[in-house]
């Protein structure tokens, strides 16, 4: 819950306070954006543990570089860019590659409980969702990143394109291409008529 003293205060104002040494103001920024940062990191890495560490590193790095924030983008986009770069660095690390090799993400953290469904629906859908999850994790990283970030619904296409450092048109193409490939692969295993 955001403290009363910072409720309704804009991000730029909180950034300014944090620059002046107000840790509580930065804490409010952490609270406001921690979900978005964590989800972006989870989209890139696939495991909660890695996503938590990257989110923490991203906030600390953002605090240390607050002076570099120029406000030509929103604080959230700037913060997500930092988190995304850190997530990609971790994804390329040998340790992460080895762990993915030993334990694929779709079998680890990307398992989601069947909340809100009847038992029958859950049984019917579980297999399909398992296939989709597996195929998403097998997509090329660029396509998977675009699809997961766009599907999360946290940010606009403009913001996601800014985080990824690509034009919006490229982002849209990647999302559509990811869908097309997924449907083609699902058709091969008996789902749909693509």
């Amino acid at each position: 819950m955001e403290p009363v003293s910072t409720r309704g205060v804009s991000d730029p104002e909180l950034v300014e306070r944090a620059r002046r040494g107000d840790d509580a103001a930065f804490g409010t920024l952490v609270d406001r954006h921690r979900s978005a940062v964590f989800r972006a990191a989870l989209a890139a890495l696939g495991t909660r543990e890695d996503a938590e560490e990257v989110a923490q590193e991203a906030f600390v790095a953002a605090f240390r570089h607050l002076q570099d924030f120029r406000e030509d983008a929103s604080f959230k986009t700037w913060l997500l860019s930092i988190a995304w770069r850190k997530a990609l660095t971790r994804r390329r690390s040998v340790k992460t590659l080895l762990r993915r090799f030993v334990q694929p993400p779709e079998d680890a953290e990307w398992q989601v409980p069947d909340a809100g469904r009847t038992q029958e629906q859950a049984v019917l859908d579980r297999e399909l969702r398992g296939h989709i999850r597996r195929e998403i994790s097998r997509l090329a990283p660029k396509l998977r990143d675009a699809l997961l970030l766009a599907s999360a619904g946290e940010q606009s296409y403009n913001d996601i394109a800014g985080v990824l450092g690509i034009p919006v048109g490229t982002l849209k193409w990647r999302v559509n291409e990811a869908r097309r490939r997924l449907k083609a692969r699902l058709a091969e295993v008996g789902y749909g008529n693509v």
Partner: protein
Amino acid sequence: MSDARLDAAIDAVAREMTDAEPSGALRARVLARIEEGRHRTSAGLPRWAWAGAAAGVVLFVAAAVWVAIPLRNQDAAQSTVAEQVAGAPPPAAASLERLAVQSDAVPPQSASPEGMPAAAGRTRLAAVRGVQAAEIGSEQGFHTVPALPAIEPLRLAAVEPAPLHVADMEISPITEMPSIEIRSLDPGSHDIQSTDPKKEK
């Protein structure tokens, strides 16, 4: 399965894959790390300073080694020569000493017998004394390299070598050679191979 349902399923799964919340302690951990970093920075030098200091130490050691190795080699060479001569001054020093004595003997404003001007001789004398001082210093465990004055160009008078005197000599006569007998070769002998293979055929 319809295309729309497949799209919806993909959307749902993709959303689920990132639909998670970080632990509630994230804020506390972030602020703790910021505080920790603040203490670390204020308590000691920042990381880049340590890196710079380490690089400086490495450079210093490298420079010291670079300077010390030639000096050590020079010391080793000098001590070897000294051991070989067993107390006698090294040849280079001896010749320099002779040169110094000669220069001392030359009166000012006069040319040396070899055609060397007196001023140049004095300059060389100073250089010789500097080298000798450096040698004395090295014997005492330190090396002092004195500043050397500018050395004037060396001028030599025309060289007139003494006439060559050849003493009388006598070449002894060649003794008589005894006869030797060479055995003739057979016509079909293959002991000697012709240089032209066609002739052999």
